[in-house]
């Protein structure tokens, strides 16, 4: 059975906005369809990237998956139960990390937070020790255990938060922008950690992010959501195809020349002797390269693979 099963999932917020007119003090009631008829399911052990532009409905979806928010439409089950109705029971089986804020107790040292979590989640002492040791080693938290959370840097705090979310061996870990604000090295370590977690413990991961490298490094599957509706659900490779993505041939000519004209490719940009030609990602580069080399004096050539960001931007703008 699927671990997460969302059918036609929707969440509408009612907000009151001031009327545009300056004279009126009345507030207008307005509905925001944050998530609108989203259907997807996730099997145990999957690593799913849940992406979309700002305000797409990612965080709202995560809040429904965790039971924080009650859906206003559709059906949702996680591990066989409705999250908002069985929130406290489900809590033992899931882990949540919010990149934007800590789930730890601000004024307490990490160690105290962890010990309290052990009691709250009724984690067996032996299991707790084992997990704590493992995560402290993997995430290099050893020196930080006695530091109050408010004194930790963003990256250190994030590692603490991730440990806190995993001590009770959750079946699924939701991460809402876990890499936000981290430097390149920390991001890399975190991705490595999450990959290990999934491989060794089989933990299901669902993460939102604006850093597509997170997705490329971690997720076989991406779900793209835009304006609350599902725009894509499939493999990362499939997303390239969907976007009608293009590869780019960068040509350095010996001398400046007018735009190159060869069959199967078109010039995107010209800058002195350098020109950028784009051609379909699924076509072979060889004929294009041959045609260019046959008619122009070429100093250098290179091929750029399609950029996932471009693909997604394309997808967003079409939906």
């Amino acid at each position: 059975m699927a671990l997460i099963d969302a059918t036609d999932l929707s969440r509408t917020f009612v907000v009151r906005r001031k009327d545009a007119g300056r004279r009126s003090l009345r507030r207008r009631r307005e509905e925001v369809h944050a998530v609108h008829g989203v259907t997807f399911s996730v099997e145990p052990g999957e690593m799913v990237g849940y992406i979309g532009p700002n305000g797409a409905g990612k965080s709202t979806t995560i809040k429904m998956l965790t039971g924080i928010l009650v859906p206003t439409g559709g059906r949702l089950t996680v591990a066989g139960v409705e999250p908002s109705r069985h929130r406290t029971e489900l809590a033992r089986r899931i882990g949540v990390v919010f990149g934007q804020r800590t789930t730890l107790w601000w004024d307490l040292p990490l160690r105290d937070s962890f010990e309290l979590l052990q009691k709250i989640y009724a984690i067996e002492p032996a299991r707790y020790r084992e997990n704590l040791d493992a995560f402290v080693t993997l995430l290099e938290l050893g020196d930080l255990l006695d530091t109050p959370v408010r004194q930790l840097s963003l990256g250190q705090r994030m590692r603490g938060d991730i440990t806190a979310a995993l001590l009770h061996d959750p079946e699924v870990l939701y991460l809402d922008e876990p890499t936000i604000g981290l430097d390149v090295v920390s991001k890399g370590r975190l991705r490595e950690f999450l990959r290990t977690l999934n491989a060794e413990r089989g933990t299901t991961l669902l993460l939102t992010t604006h850093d597509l490298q997170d997705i490329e490094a971690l997720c076989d599957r991406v779900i793209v959501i835009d304006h609350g509706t599902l725009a894509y659900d499939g493999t990362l490779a499939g997303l390239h195809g969907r976007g009608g993505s293009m590869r780019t041939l960068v040509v350095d000519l010996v001398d400046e020349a007018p735009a190159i004209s060869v069959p199967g490719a078109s010039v995107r940009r010209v800058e002195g002797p350098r020109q950028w030609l784009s051609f379909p990602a699924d076509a072979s580069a060889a004929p294009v390269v041959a045609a260019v080399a046959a008619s122009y004096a070429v100093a250098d050539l290179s091929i750029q693979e399609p950029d996932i960001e471009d693909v997604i931007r394309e997808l967003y703008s079409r939906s």
Partner: protein
Amino acid sequence: MADASVVRAAPRQYAWIALMWIRAALAYPASFWTLTVAGAIITGLDFVGIAIMFTTIDTLGDFGLREIALLYGATGVALGLADMAIGSVEQIGHHVRTGSLDTMLTRPVPLLVQVCADRFALRRLGRISQSAVVLAWAAVPIDWTPARVAVTLMMLVAGLGIFFAFFVAFSCIQFWTADASELANAFTYGGNTMTQYPLTVFPREVVLSLTFLLPVAFVNWYPSLYVLGREDPFGMPSWFAFLSPAVALALLALAALAWRTGVRHYTSTGS
């Protein structure tokens, strides 16, 4: 939802969280004791004020200083205990704004337990012990019978329950408007301040409101009249003295309903 196992686990979970905060507070003993003693002195000043008045008057609203001390002590102990046990529930608006409510909602402990135990402040014992001292002083001249002892205990427990319900119910407003904690304060502490005095200093309408609308009169007034062996100055039935537990239970039920509605209504924040 609220099945037996959840209810049974709640006190234990509450204790874990509270103990953690106590330990954290005791890590800085100097600051802890300063705050505790300061709390006792500041609330003690209320009563010193009343006592000073009594250097020029003999009775206030037909009540002597010892009798007022009973009213003062009873409401003080009840409010103090409620405030220590669950006063943190007032912070709900803060939790909504900062998103920590979302975090609490992802933990396997009932939200009310987490919110109430959060930042448990043992230092409030300072205030409670100050009120308890006044209460003990008031108790000296009373002609104690088993019934009066029982009513006194009932008064303290029911008073705790009533303030408990007020704290929770008024804090629920913050699920709708996250910055209404001042309002919650006004009702609960205002109710407490009024009950520090014999209600005979107020007009009849106020006494009726404090009986039927915001029934803080059941915290100390009616049971105290019984303990002091006095007729009700407003002609209320004498059995009102025994009504406090029922009032407390009814208010607690209303508070629970408000709480559930509030949590259900909670819409988190946009970030």
